């Protein structure tokens, strides 16, 4: 009798594992930069596990799929370059002349131009992605970091950490057309997909500024309050806005939480407890899940976007910083 049980049991579990092994249509790969271990962890969003660790240059931070999905670009700041990982082979195949100490970068809509923030130089460097050559630069404020592009592709945003401004740069003329003062130490900028608002996080100021991108004024400030937690620990960094523009997720750094904000009222509706020093985030392409990097606990938290619950934690390399997700 037990042999029959064993046989059916094996058949059942064997089939289950076989099914799990083949990637169903909505499985994605998340690439996570590990600032300290100089690696990139690749997470399979179906297994929710790391399937590969890629060795990269020194101090990897900004990380992004190219628009055509063929490469993952990762800024390796201490090597003063941006590496290109071929997504087919999952190996570093080339580098881009990024200027010194690149941290964050962003591509234009067509995926032809790369805008890179060079923190040590107070510049934004422009790179032609097809020729893989430097095209020019824009002088900005002290310690540029956050980068965003307006949905119509016309305006590039760069935030400077010590100047405390969001600079609006015309992508055609490459001139700064406006500067908006925000809270202390702005880190990240994100547009709503309808282009009606620009959100900028201020890490030391502890707020997120909502900016009218046409009038170039701050129209609102989102503040955070967590009972029992000292205000200084609330340091907003990464921002993720759902494509319907209704919900925004803000990583609050050493507060170890992600704030869920209703974009209409600008009020926090929930705080999600994740790992330590939550930093940046990315949605899966189907927008079902949001993955956030927890720098100090060396892991990635998986958030169910609809249910607003943290489902899982995945161990990655040391000091996970940025994350980018696409179909394999």
């Amino acid at each position, binding site marked *: 009798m037990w042999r029959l049980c064993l046989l059916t049991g094996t058949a059942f579990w064997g089939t289950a594992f076989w099914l799990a092994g083949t990637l169903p249509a909505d499985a994605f790969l998340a690439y996570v930069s590990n600032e300290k271990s100089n690696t990139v962890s690749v997470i399979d969003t179906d297994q929710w596990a790391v399937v590969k660790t890629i060795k990269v240059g020194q101090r990897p931070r900004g990380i992004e799929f190219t628009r055509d999905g063929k490469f993952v670009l990762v800024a390796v700041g201490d090597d003063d370059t941006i590496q290109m990982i071929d997504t087919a082979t999952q190996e570093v195949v080339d580098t881009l002349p990024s200027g010194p100490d690149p941290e964050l970068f962003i591509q234009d809509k067509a995926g032809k131009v790369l805008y890179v923030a060079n923190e040590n130089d107070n510049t934004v460097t422009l790179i032609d992605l097809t020729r893989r050559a430097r095209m020019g630069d824009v002088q900005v404020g002290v310690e540029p970091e956050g980068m965003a592009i307006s949905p119509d592709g016309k305006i590039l945003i760069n935030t*400077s950490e010590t100047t405390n*401004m969001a600079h*609006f740069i015309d992508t055609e003329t490459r*001139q700064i057309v*406006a*500067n908006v003062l925000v809270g*202390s130490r702005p880190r990240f900028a994100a547009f709503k997909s309808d282009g009606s608002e620009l959100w900028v996080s201020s890490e030391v100021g502890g707020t997120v500024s909502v900016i009218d991108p046409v*009038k170039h004024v701050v129209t609102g400030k989102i503040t955070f309050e967590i009972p029992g937690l000292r205000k200084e620990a609330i340091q907003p960094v990464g921002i993720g806005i759902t494509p319907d523009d209704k919900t925004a997720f803000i990583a609050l750094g050493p507060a170890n939480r992600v704030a869920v904000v209703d974009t209409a009222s600008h009020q926090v509706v929930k705080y999600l407890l994740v790992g330590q020093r939550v930093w940046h985030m990315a949605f899966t392409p189907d927008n079902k899940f949001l993955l956030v990097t927890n720098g100090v606990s060396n892991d990635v938290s998986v958030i169910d976007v609809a249910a607003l619950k943290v489902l899982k934690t995945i161990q990655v390399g040391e000091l996970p910083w940025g994350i980018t997700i696409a179909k394999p």
Partner: protein
Amino acid sequence: MFQFGTISHIGARELCGYSIRLLGGLLIGLNARMTDALAADPTEIGIGYLRRAKVEQTLSLVEQPAADDGIAGARLAIEDNNTTGKFLNQHFTLEEIRLKEGEDAAKVAIALADRNIAFIIADLPADQLLKAADAIRDRGTVLFNAGATDDRLREEDCRANIFHIAPTRSMLADGLAQYLVWKQWKRWLMVVGSHEQDKLLADALRRAASRFGARIVQERVFEDTGGARRTDSGVTLIQRQMPVFTQQAPAYDVLVAADESEVFASYLPYRTWDPRPVAGSAGLIPKSWDAAQDQWGAVQMQNRFLKLNSRHMTALDMQAWTAARMIGEATSRVNSGDRKAVVDFLKGPDFSVAAFKGQRLTLRPWNQQLRQPILLADGRMVVSVSPQEGFLHQVSELDTLGVDQPETKCKLH
């Protein structure tokens, strides 16, 4: 500021199109909140830097302060302020004055105030700082104390026209004591120098021990008997002297040295009779900044400083940088160089400054002391940052360092 690209082969049509774009750009510029003033000359903001005459000699060759110690930090901040100022049509200049030996700081401060300098960063001993502050008080000129750590300047001798950026001796001592207590190194052998400033530091350390639960098992005084600080082959004598000086102590965990005068503390590590760590003026040292600080984006700061000044950044450099940055932060927030607007903003509830120590720094309203974390460094690494976890406070955990509001003797006037 409109940056024009090179224009070649302009035809009439192109010129017309260019003019329309220029006009359009001008209109966008006028609409933009921050670019209103671009048509006019920039607002000039002059900041004075008043330096003490003498730079003290240190026992350690590598710690000997550079000739531009302190002011190098201010110079970098002026550059940073001017980068920001480009977008706000503000321009900053630094007026550097080094006092001559015996020169009256008050006279020099008055001279700066006469030239309409509204903000003066000062690295002066306490008495000279007070003389200068009182001399310029009625002119609306404000001093930024970047160098003096005396508690009395924030207590019984506080002044409404001084902002304190340097930490106090009590903040430094508390920062150290919190760590030693956290580490459970609660039994201290304290060795105090024979000069006035050494005794002041010892007072702060005694207070810190009592406050946080450490016990000073014994105190010894190291008399300064004069003589050259550095001699060619003096180390063989020191190697014999220090163990003998520290022998027969009651059981202790750490030797805490109060030696601001640089007479003996640096000779103690690895030479104590019992194998014990040294802290205070040598060994594990509390300070507002260290060249080894690499947390919270500090590497950016260190790189910029190194690039401009070709040397490592000291605590005094950082205190001066922060002072100049506070002025720049205020002028950007009020969008003006007017001294009253700037000072009102600094004294108001919205002021804070980011200084690469993981949280925003604010001014204590009762005595205008800048709240700040204290680093504990051993000369190569930052070992810890106080306040230590677990020391709580109802207003700000940074107020567990130094003399707190309910205890203050300061009445600002």
